[in-house]
């Protein structure tokens, strides 16, 4: 496997794809939900959040898709659990900026760092960002179905 591929299908990503956290789970007291779909490639997810006083107490997701999208969903939800909705939105903006803009910026990303390899694969960026957009929509109570195509 060459180094670019290794950076994309990195250990953590493969692990989160094989054993996604908070998968097939609707968190108790769920207060926010949104659905997203990339019909041209077949990735589709529903994100569920339990939010109390702006704090994301619990998370869950359902759906199916490629390894990049599933791992991205799993890592994202694990990271935002226990954060405030404002912090989650900030993380979404940082991540989106990192994948779609030029330039190396020092951003607070934590575990999400492993997903930055996607930048070398422009055709797959939409796989990585889909559930982030869904999460953002869930927090905003947006009723539209999300897509990154």
């Amino acid at each position, binding site marked *: 496997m*060459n180094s*670019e591929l290794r950076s994309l299908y990195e250990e953590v990503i493969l692990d989160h794809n094989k054993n996604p956290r908070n998968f097939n789970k609707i968190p108790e007291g769920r207060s926010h939900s949104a659905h997203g779909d990339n019909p041209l*490639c*077949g990735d589709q997810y529903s994100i569920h959040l339990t939010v109390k006083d702006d704090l994301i107490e619990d998370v869950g997701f359902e759906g199916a898709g490629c*390894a*990049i999208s599933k791992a991205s969903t799993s890592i994202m939800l694990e990271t935002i659990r226990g954060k405030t909705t404002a912090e989650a939105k900030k993380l979404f903006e940082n991540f989106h900026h990192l994948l779609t803009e030029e330039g190396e910026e020092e951003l607070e990303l934590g575990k999400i760092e492993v997903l930055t390899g996607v930048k070398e694969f422009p055709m*797959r960026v939409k*796989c990585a960002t889909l559930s982030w957009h869904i999460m953002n929509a869930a927090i905003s109570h947006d009723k539209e179905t999300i897509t990154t195509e």
Partner: protein
Amino acid sequence: MNFPALQPRIHTSEADFNPLKIKKMFPILQRRVHGKKMVYLDNGATTQKPMSVINTLTEYYEKKNANVHRGVHHLTELATASYEESRKKVQAFINAGNHQEIIFVRGTTEAINLVAQTFGRSALGPGDSVLITEMEHHSNIVPWQLLCEQTGANLDVVHIDDNGELNLAEFSEKLTPQTKLFAVTHISNALGSVNPLKELIAQAHEMGIPVLVDGAQATPHVKVDVQSLDCDFYTFSGHKMYAPTGIGVLYGKKELLEAMPPYQGGGDMITRVTLERSSYAKPPYKFEAGTPNIEGVIGLGAAIDFLTDLNMNQVQEHEEKLLTYATERLKEINGLRMIGTAKQKAGILSFVFDEIHPHDVGTILDQQGIAVRAGHHCAMPVMQKFAIPATTRASLGLYNTLEDIDILIEGLIQVQEVFK
């Protein structure tokens, strides 16, 4: 307009079909991808072009370029002669009875839309129906849906079985007195299934139902004889048969084309224009409004020369060998399931893994220099039938070799390694 007869071609003898030699005729196949030798297995999406086709385009612009069918100067004569010579080449290539039955369009999609909006609009009304199949490409589904919305007609569908073969009993049942057209693919782009066209067309004709055949995946791979098939319309695309993009052909039986109203209005498709009314040219010009894609037409002619020299029977034989070899070798990959297992197949290999998404397969193969396609292949109903979001598809071309298949298999083993 009278044009000189075609020059006879000198055919390659059977012994000379040499895929390695042929590969060298395609400059792009010599390139490397991600530092690896490129193995191009996405011919169902588009094909690469031999130097002879590329040279023809350059020569056209260097020596002959002018607008066709108008003017009296020398360049116009050259351009028009080349353009009409291509039309005759197409006629010979598919064995049409008359060069007036060959209409140049942008591609298969435009050809089908043309028939839907001219033949279809005049033939259909409320209570009538168009019959298609479940294995069609979107270009042979959506134009009929639009037509049915416009006319109040119904869209009927013949389904496929788990092997990707048409349900022939259902087909017979669905040919009714209200059926005004049957539209079917020659070879399925998602499954590789080859349909028993002669049988289907004969049955449809018994009920007086005309048949349109989508030949986009057929003309590059098998010898097509529209008179033998007796189809009423046959459509195909240049870029899928080693010719440039933006060019395609609609073949239609003379009586049908003469009865159809025009498609696009403009120059060239008229005989006389006044501000009050216009009268229309005869086919094929009736359906060729405006300045055509002249370079595309001439490029298509050059591609037909290339294929004719190679001999389509040899092309077909070579690809059959590749298909057999590939199908056998794919069985070595655990957890890989073929989608499209019809008894009669062309060189299209669609497959899924239990646990690995086609996009991940495609990306990992790409990094190894192997080009395949991952997705629904503009055949969402096929994906729905097999309850999958997408497949990975390797589609063969005449320049592929047994070694290309070996590299694909190695690549797939690598894919499994990543996801172990």
